[in-house]
């Protein structure tokens, strides 16, 4: 591949995070370009350089516009002439990313948009006596890392699947031109800038793009470990560019976006590429099991299918893009998320994101908690309900709970009683003791404390009545109600936080998911009551009592009604990182998930 000798040698280290310092020595950083400078490209087009908008791995990126315009809708990437990656990237664009080719591809595959950037111009320019190469590309919006950070290293599940589909489109385009990208990651995915651009993500940075091999699988020591160490594929670790490698890289990213931490990141192996390689091989060799440990709450089906498929591909086989996309699109359908419109990066605390490593929206929860303190005991929050047909399997969940709880250290005495009650559809009269937030005639629920919490060694917390108004209840509980159908009561000692922006419109005969966090101690008793109303007054109550600390998960078996869906509730405690010594995340903010299924 057109990669000059110097970059080749440098490549392994070049994108490793820990080797950032070394990087700048391997590649010359470009001279600063003053704002207002005019670059002339090879076709004699003129581009005015605007403000710098970012520094890439090896070069600076400036906003730019055609001389005579003012909107700065292009970017100029500028690097010294000797730098390899930009040269590679330029060639890739020139050969494969012509606007007309892209349009043709879109037409052929019936795509409205394709996340493939194209080149507007390229050329060379002398800056401070040194020759620099530059390319001009359309300008895009912000990259995904920003959203990942905002959401605590994860993205909404639906968005992850949509991104997967879009990236598969781009892969298909690139692969059809004989190239692989080899460096997909959040930082290399940008959103569109123009109107409606937020619906399409663009894959950029083709600095590692190369022809994939079609013949024999020959490991190339010179190119070993190319790419971004966290995500790079097993094939790339061997120095072989393949199409399956691209899919593998995508897979690792998807896993991370869903909130799981890749094992080699957890084990801090990143500084030693061969170790990462070994870890990845072990991971992929038994992909089913590996994913189960990563997603203790259940592997998202499309991820499982996708990774299994990737692990079975041979090195020179053409991936079946349609098949891969269909997994993700059917998952989208189940989530009831349309595959169009702007990509949604607002994290909704949703239980269907199958991972309990990182509790969703901690900051949000914190503010909610604060709010609760103020107007406690009754907190009305309009619950945004997330409808999703997730197919977690419960055995697995239980397993994970046990694992989690085994790690638990300090039983610190607080009780929370939660009684989310839920009714699907059917208009039924609002129940008494409860403040209704959304007085709708749609699903609704009532709090029916079936079992009173059994205080386990709670001398500290329980006598503190922080919630005086709740005193009239049988147990002095904080009571939280929100529609469509959860009502929570927390003991005074324990704070109950309901993430109040789960949303969608409740619909009958659907699966609803609620996500709320209880600020209770490690060994709280959590009781969940689920009530489903089929017809008015025909309540089905399910009581779940998970008496901790050892068993966090409880399965509510509902009394069954013929021809009616089964009500199942999973209760789960989510713990910061399963590591109570972590100062960052409060170990006291377990999330309890109540799920209701329709069988």
């Amino acid at each position, binding site marked *: 591949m057109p990669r000059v000798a110097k970059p080749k040698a440098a490549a392994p280290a070049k994108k490793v995070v820990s080797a950032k310092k070394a990087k700048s020595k391997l590649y010359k950083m470009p001279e600063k370009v003053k704002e207002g400078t005019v670059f002339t490209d*090879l*076709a*004699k087009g003129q581009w005015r350089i605007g403000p710098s908008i970012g520094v890439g791995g090896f070069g600076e990126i400036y906003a730019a516009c055609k001389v005579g315009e003012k909107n700065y809708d292009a970017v100029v990437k500028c690097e010294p002439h000797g730098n390899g990656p930009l040269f590679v990237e330029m*060639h890739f664009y*020139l*050969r494969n990313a012509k606007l007309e080719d892209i349009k043709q591809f879109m037409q052929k595959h019936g795509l409205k948009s394709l996340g493939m950037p194209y080149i507007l111009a*390229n*050329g*060379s320019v002398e800056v401070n006596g040194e020759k620099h*190469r530059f390319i001009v590309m359309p300008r895009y919006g912000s990259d995904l890392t920003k959203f990942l950070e905002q959401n605590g290293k994860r993205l909404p599940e639906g968005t992850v699947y949509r991104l997967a589909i879009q990236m598969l489109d781009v892969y298909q385009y690139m692969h059809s031109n004989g190239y692989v990208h080899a460096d997909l990651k959040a930082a290399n995915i940008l959103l569109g800038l123009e109107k409606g651009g937020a619906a399409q993500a663009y894959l950029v940075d083709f600095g590692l793009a190369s022809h994939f091999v079609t013949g024999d699988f020959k490991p190339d020591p010179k190119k070993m470990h190319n790419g971004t160490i966290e995500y790079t594929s097993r094939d790339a670790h061997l120095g072989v560019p393949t199409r399956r490698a691209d899919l593998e890289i995508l897979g690792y990213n998807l896993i991370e976006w869903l909130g799981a931490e890749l094992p080699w990141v957890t084990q801090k192996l990143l500084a030693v590429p061969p170790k990462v390689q070994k870890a990845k091989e072990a991971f992929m060799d038994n992909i089913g099991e590996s994913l189960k440990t990563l997603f203790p709450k259940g592997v998202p089906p499309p991820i499982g299918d996708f990774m299994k498929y990737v692990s079975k591909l041979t090195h020179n086989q053409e991936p079946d893009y349609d098949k891969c996309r269909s997994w993700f699109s059917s998952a989208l359908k189940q989530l009831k998320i349309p595959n169009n419109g702007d990509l949604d990066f607002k994290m909704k605390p949703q239980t269907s994101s199958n991972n309990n490593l990182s509790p969703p929206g901690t900051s949000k929860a914190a503010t909610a908690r604060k709010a609760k303190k103020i107007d406690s005991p009754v907190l009305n929050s309009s619950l945004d309900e997330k409808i999703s047909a997730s197919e977690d399997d419960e055995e697995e969940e239980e397993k994970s709970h046990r694992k989690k709880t085994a790690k638990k250290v300090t039983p610190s005495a607080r009780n929370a009683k939660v009684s989310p009650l839920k009714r699907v559809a059917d208009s039924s009269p609002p129940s008494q003791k409860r403040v209704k937030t959304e007085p709708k005639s749609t699903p609704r629920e009532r709090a029916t404390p079936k079992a009173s919490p059994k205080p386990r060694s709670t001398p500290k917390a329980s006598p503190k009545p922080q919630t005086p108004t709740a005193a009239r209840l049988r147990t002095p509980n904080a009571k939280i109600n929100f529609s469509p159908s959860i009502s929570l009561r927390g003991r005074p000692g324990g704070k109950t936080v309901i993430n109040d922006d789960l949303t969608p419109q409740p619909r009958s005969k659907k699966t609803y998911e609620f996500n709320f966090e209880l600020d209770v101690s490690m060994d709280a008793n959590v009781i969940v009551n689920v009530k489903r109303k089929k017809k008015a007054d025909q309540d089905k109550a399910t009581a779940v009592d998970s008496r901790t600390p050892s068993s966090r998960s409880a399965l509510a078996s509902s009394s069954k009604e013929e021809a009616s869906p089964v009500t199942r509730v999973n209760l789960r405690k989510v713990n910061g990182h399963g590591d109570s010594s972590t100062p960052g995340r409060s170990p006291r903010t377990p999330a309890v998930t109540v799920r209701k299924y329709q069988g």
Partner: protein
Amino acid sequence: MSGTSQKHRNFVAEPMGNKSVTELAGIGETLGGRLKDAGFDMAYTVLGQYLVLKKDEELFKDWMKEVCHASSKQASDCYNCLNDWCEEFL
């Protein structure tokens, strides 16, 4: 230098791939035909000659004049074209 021709810019803007000799600046139908007769049918073969002559302007122009009876202007256009291309892509 009074700017470059459109043909020059087109050639220099991208990898030459399998472009024919006639796409080189300074080489039209006539010279192209002569070059083809001499065995130089693709732009890259002329590039090869240019490189074999070690990018030497004098030698290349002389060679042009010899092999296809190019005029000084044609020879120098072609030379600049290849030279610029190499600046960018070699």
